[in-house]
């Protein structure tokens, strides 16, 4: 099957769950149904989860497809260090966040989806995966060598004048040297 990085799928699931929780929360608050406070919690939790899960981590090989505009959030999430790097903590966090969603109908779906995402994160954590940020690599500027700043003081060494004079016997050799053997045209 090859090396599957479960964290990638868990990340997609968590982001989708955040959106489902958010949508359910909006429906609950807009309809002003009974216990709509849980729906308001759903909106807040949904937004928080979306912000946390939006920056995609890079794969074990070091490459990864970035989501558009994720750089600022990557920096914020990275700032929390081991809290966000470790997937056990994420799994626990999602499991805890999903529980209040089970109290009203609107957020029940978000709760179940988040629970699934939490389980997949747990699987990823058991397999030793970690969240590593995708940051642009600072390319080292190629510095030109030092000698480029100073032009040479002397001309290059040349053989004495008799050898440099063109000889009549070998006109072609004196005129130029062929880098490759010349052949007639072939198709």
């Amino acid at each position, binding site marked *: *099957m*090859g*090396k*599957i*990085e479960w964290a*990638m*799928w868990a990340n*997609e*699931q968590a982001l*989708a*769950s955040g959106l*489902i929780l958010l*949508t*359910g929360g909006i*429906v*609950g608050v807009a*309809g002003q*149904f*009974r216990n709509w406070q849980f729906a308001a919690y759903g909106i807040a939790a949904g937004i928080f989860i979306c912000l946390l899960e939006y920056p*995609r981590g890079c*794969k074990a090989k070091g490459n*990864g*497809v970035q989501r558009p505009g994720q750089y600022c959030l990557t920096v914020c999430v990275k700032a929390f260090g081991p809290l966000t790097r470790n997937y056990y903590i994420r799994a626990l966090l999602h499991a805890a966040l999903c529980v209040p969603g089970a109290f*009203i*109908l*609107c957020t*029940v*779906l978000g709760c*179940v*989806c988040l629970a*699934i995402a939490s389980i997949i994160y747990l699987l990823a954590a058991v397999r030793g995966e970690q969240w590593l940020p995708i940051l642009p690599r600072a390319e080292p500027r190629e510095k030109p060598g030092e000698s480029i700043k100073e032009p040479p003081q002397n001309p290059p060494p040349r053989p004495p004048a008799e050898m440099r004079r063109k000889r009549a016997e070998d006109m072609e050799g004196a005129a130029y040297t062929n880098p*490759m053997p010349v052949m007639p045209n*072939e*198709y």
Partner: protein
Amino acid sequence: MPLSWRSWIANEGSKHFILVLWLSTNIALFWKTFVSYCSGPQHYYLHKMLGLGLCMSRASAAVLNLNCCLVLLPVCRSLLAGLRGFQKVTSRKARRILDKRKTFHMACGIAIGLFSVIHVSAHLANVYSFSAWYSDEFPALNLARHRGEDPRIIMFTTVPGATGVLLVLVLFLMFTASSYSMRVSHYDIFWYTHNLSIVFYVLLLVHVIGGVLKYQTNVEHHPPDCFRPNRTAPGGQNSGFVNSSQVDGLSKVCREEPQFQAHFPETWLWVSGPLCLYCAERLYRYMRGCRPVTVASVVRHPCRVVEVHMQKSGFRARPGQYIVLNCPHVSSFESHPFTLTTCPTERNATFGIHLRVLGDWTERFTDLLLAEPEVGAEILPVALQRRYPRVYVDGPFGSPSEDVFNYEVSVCVAGGIGVTPFASVLQALLDDWQHHKLRRLYFIWVCRELQSFRWFAELLCSLHQKLWQENRPDYLNIRLYVSKERGLQSLSEGRYQVLSARLLIGRPRWEMLFEEIGRANKQKRVGVFCSGPKGLSTTLHKMCNSNHFGATFEYNKESFS
């Protein structure tokens, strides 16, 4: 460069036409259902109870019906390959529309996702309304068992509610595994979750049995909001004393009590046809793929490419088609697509593929194929023969490259290993080039390393030789490009002189190439076939839409899942 309207219409016209048709059908269906539930007399009482949630949920359900029906059609690959083969029945325009099947499938899938969100949100509101506005007047309309019943209980203890939750979970798993990055990095998760679609359809068929939303059957005898003389009005008035003015103002008098009936599950009509077609297709592919395949020979090529020749009874394929290989010894469930580089003919019944060793499946597969036979002291000579692993082949399936022969002038542009569809085309031309519509073929192959050209150097040289000997020197126009400029490079063998003379260092200059092709083929319809990385195909697509001496360039792209 200036846009050529003829080229643009040839390349983009049918695509955009289908898109507009699909969008307008969706919008019309949504609108019609919305209006029917909002203002139709048969839904009057239900609408009074549920409000906007009813109209939104039913309208989105209608759109979901349409898209669940359409989404299955582009993935019936064998059926579409068969349609492509009927060249007398389907025109080239229709075949080019078939090339866009994956995009259409994705569009329908996205529509299903979007309208599911609307449908579920509206039904969540409906469940609350069923609970809060429990109707004592018309008990038949109710879903809740009593006023104020907990909506969660209503959801999880009714058939539509429970199946609805399961449907959302299945869609959730399918959608999260279908994003571009998931398909690129973990194709197997995408493929396995997508096979959950059969569970989705079974649940869908059960979901609509529920009969929760009812319509009124006797609208003529009980018009909505009619005057009922023997019942107490909701305001508490005793309507035993009826004012004459009241009776005059209300023209309708109820003759009987309203009767409600659940709708016939329309979804069955929409979905059963394509579902049966898809199940038949999968069954056919399974039975066709069950017959074993014998591996005839394995050849190693430079740059990590291996050529495998196989034989299967009753296997027929056209140049440009691809097959899907499964090797249980490597992985029981994984299968990978490979384009055929040699098709079976009357003279030679074997078919071949060229596979590049890139991931772990191809590595293990080639290790098995190229393993040295074990030599033991007591093994008889006959057992020294290579033991190749068992291989199953599903296919062949169609691809855009089959159309190379249907243009008078074709341009084939290949990047690296993407040359495989054109290799089978060249092989077919080597067998018989005279009986096709094709009169001229421009073959442009861009590789990173020089040694890659050795994969098909023999084939190119022999085809070139044959065409020169049969006095058609302008039939085949070869251009080879090595994109990594690393000093002087040439194919040193004498027999590849033809290719050395046509080898250029650096990337091709597309503008100039297209000018040259346009100038030589003015006012003609030229087919451009691209098989390579995304950057190459985007550049070519742009080139095809612009104007070059009045020649129309029709763009066809080979897509690799």
